[in-house]
């Protein structure tokens, strides 16, 4: 762990500031570190904040499993970052590992536990029935006309989503819940709603003909509607460069995607984690760090989703240059089209763009854009809070950017400025 990596950990700017205050402050109770016989290092600390029970935070190196008892719905939280930065500064004394820390380096984190697989026959039958039900429901909606939905009553949508959850179709239910906010939500809502209904209907169609599909296509359909099936095939070993994180909040849960690029394997991998608020416990690999270990890929027509066979461990950093991960806009978009034609349910697609200029909105208009040397333009999210920082970094020397291609918008997650740096923890400029 270097100082730069610790800086990259913060999921947002307030957390980064709070962690800095905490590390320099005097709210520390007991704190210490100890090495286990297996060679792992355990760190722990208690923070006395107010009259509540002290906040207990632990970390294990080099696997980077972090836990904290604070209530923040952020991962890593300020306590974890403060603990690691104090450890780096050498101001934490060694000590005997207390009971509540012992065993951290063994046992999987709850988020990493392999959930019940949708391959179970009972579940499969329920899932197929649930998707058939969804197809009928969608058909009824369109049959009666979407104009009836203009008042934006979400109840029927949420009811349908709940029925899908009962049928183990968790991802389809999430999509439906997400769509429920669209009807009546401003101009051209039908133009925004109908494509998503159509794609959901295609997914139902896939389940109608589930037995005709190839194993890879079945796995993709399962991942899109329910949950990813078990990883199959031989694990891929090597060094993995951590290029970015994307976190989404869902109720009291955080869903985090960690994008890895195999420096030796020359391929992408994405790790998905769910962290529950209130008892934060999970693995976090900082952006720009390199992790070593074996990944098992979930089967699919364009396999990218993976799970570590055993927790990845931090390794000496590499920056990924010269591996061919960076592309021009043209190549990246062509790659996306190819991936989408293999897996039509693809939800997130990684792109590393090389030598891109950031362009501020034209006078009197909105929308930041990216431009590469060929003059191709990609839209950036609106509003975009990191534009001025990127523009300042890129003046005179266009940097490489990593991000997700998300429904026609490039969402930057990290930038290469002497090393991969996350966007999330940086202070925003309006």
């Amino acid at each position, binding site marked *: 762990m270097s100082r730069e990596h610790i800086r990259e950990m913060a999921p947002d700017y307030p957390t980064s500031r709070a962690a800095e205050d905490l590390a320099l402050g005097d709210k520390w109770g007991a704190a210490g570190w100890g090495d286990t016989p297996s060679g792992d290092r355990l760190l722990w600390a208690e923070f006395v904040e107010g009259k509540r029970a002290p906040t207990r935070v632990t970390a294990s190196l080099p696997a980077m499993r972090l836990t904290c008892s604070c209530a923040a719905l952020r991962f890593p939280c300020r306590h974890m970052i403060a603990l690691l930065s104090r450890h780096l500064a050498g101001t934490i004394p060694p000590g005997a590992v207390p009971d509540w820390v012992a065993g951290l380096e063994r046992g999987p984190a709850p988020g990493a536990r392999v959930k019940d697989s949708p391959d179970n026959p009972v579940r499969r039958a329920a899932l197929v029935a649930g998707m058939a039900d969804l197809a009928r429901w969608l058909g009824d909606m369109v049959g009666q*006309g979407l104009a009836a939905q203009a008042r934006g009553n979400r109840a029927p949508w949420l009811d349908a989503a709940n029925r899908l959850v009962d049928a183990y179709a968790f991802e389809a239910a999430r999509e439906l819940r997400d769509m429920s906010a669209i009807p009546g939500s401003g101009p051209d809502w039908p133009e925004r709603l109908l494509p998503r209904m159509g*794609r959901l209907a295609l997914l139902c169609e896939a389940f109608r003909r589930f037995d005709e599909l190839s194993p890879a296509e079945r796995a993709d359909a399962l991942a899109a509607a329910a949950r990813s099936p078990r990883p199959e095939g031989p694990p891929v070993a090597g060094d993995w460069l951590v290029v970015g994180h994307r976190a989404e909040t869902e109720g009291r849960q955080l869903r985090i995607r960690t994008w890895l690029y195999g420096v030796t394997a020359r391929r992408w991998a994405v790790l998905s984690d769910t962290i529950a608020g209130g008892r934060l416990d999970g693995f976090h690999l900082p952006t720009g760090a390199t992790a070593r270990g074996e990944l098992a890929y979930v089967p699919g027509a364009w396999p990218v989703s993976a799970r570590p066979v055993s927790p990845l461990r931090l390794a000496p950093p590499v920056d990924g240059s010269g591996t061919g991960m960076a592309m021009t*806009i043209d190549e990246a978009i062509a790659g996306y089209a190819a991936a989408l034609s293999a897996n039509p349910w693809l939800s997130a697609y990684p792109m590393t763009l090389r030598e891109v200029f950031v362009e501020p909105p034209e006078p009197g208009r909105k929308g930041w854009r990216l431009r590469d040397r060929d003059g191709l333009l990609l839209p950036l999210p609106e509003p975009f809070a990191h534009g001025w920082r990127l523009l300042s*970094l890129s*003046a005179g020397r266009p940097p490489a950017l990593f991000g997700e291609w998300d429904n026609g918008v490039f969402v930057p997650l990290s930038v290469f400025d002497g090393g991969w740096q996350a966007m999330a923890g940086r202070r925003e400029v309006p």
Partner: protein
Amino acid sequence: MNLPPELVAAALVGASRAEMPAARSFPAALGEIYAALDGRPPEERLLLLAGAAALHATAGWLPSHAPGTEWRLPAFRPEGDRPVCSLAAADLLERMLARQDTTLFPELLSLLDRAGLRAPDALVPHILDRGAKAPRLRPALVPIIGERGRWLASLNPAWRYAAVDVADPLSCRAAWEADPAGRVALAIIVRRENPAAARRLIETTWRSEPDAIRRELPATLEAGLSLDDEPFLERALDDRDALTRRKAADLLANIPGSRLVGRVTAAAGDILILSDGRLLPAPQAPITDAMVRDGITRATGSAAAPGNQPRSAADWSRLITQTVGMIPLDHWTERFGMTPEGVIAAALAGTWPRTIITALATAARRQNDRNWAIALLTGDNYSERTGMLLPLLTPDECHALLAGRLAAGDDAGVVMILRRWTEEWDEASGVALVDFFGRQATIDPDAKLSATLRFLLRQFARQCPPAVAGYAAGNLSRLPANKAWQTSLAVFIDALKARMALHEAVTGWRMREHVGDRAAATPVFRVEI
């Protein structure tokens, strides 16, 4: 992701009621799917076609292509830019930009500027943002943003203040018109480079400015004040706002040879007379409206007083201070045929010694007369009245003066010097003053000067050379002083340590200059060819 409009219309009306859109409204590639869905219920056909069309559009999306001629961003020219400051200085800068704790912020900015460094690239937008929100910081912020900052500022309307080309009157004028709240800051920046241009900018909108701004704008002329500014300030003497009038009169009195000084000398040159080697005030003609215009105050309640004669001692005192404060000092040496020392001795022997000495000191400060300043300081025994003259001395003279006062055990003199000297002390003086404060903290905690000294200790913390921090920490902590002094000394030591960290962060980099510009040293992502 654009679906055929017929499809959306059909979905809105309802697939069971609407006609199915014809195959030709879909992309040709979907023809096969269209045909395959023949025979399915209409709502299923519509949904699946919508899904297929959406997928088709998403997969086939192509980035728009802007021809090279449309390139709007101005070229970025980093040539001749300042080197980037050290990482330690960048960390400090980042912290101070993010927080409200800004006591050391101006010092960091001026240190960076004096060292000829600029802020790191990633922080430039934050600096520009801070300047947009706090116009008073702009004169200190603009030098450290570098070429990159100026380039960025030209792209963001909110940051235009930093993109002003001081040498270009049109650019200055546009920025002046666009941003009324930033005018004072812009005037200060332009005045540094081109005094006349700043004055012309002020004149363009002078009549329409609100009172609050008119009070502040003349103060920006203090730097580089000359006879060229006289016509404008003369007009400001007729301003509708009293504070603006007073500021204009004060500035005119600072210009040697200005018409205002001539008028006051003609009207009140005989206010002091010499009688038996003593300076005395002489009865005066009534204060005319012309004198009031020049900044002379009428006697209180004078509306009813016949002849506007000063009646009370306070009236007299004010009249002497105001007039003698403006009249050239040479006037008195010529009039009485005496040296400055002689005039001062006569004033001290007269009936109004304190008032006349204060007035002469004011005149010496305005006329920047070092001979008079030294004569007044020594003649009046380094009293608080002559303290305003301290800035006229060179640092060496002031350090010598301080050493003399310390050696003489003149606590009041040391307090005056501490209060009035605004620049940084040298190390020897810093050490001597640390010892002085240490003595004062222990000998007599309830002495008359104790509270004053603890106040001055806070000011001294900003002027003491940071190199003394170690000495201060060793000599001032754990002194047998009372609680108030111990707190003050601890705050002082902490402040000095913080300043030392600041100086090391900024200047330490200059020593390791050969490391080179970080921008040049940063590895650029190697592209696979």
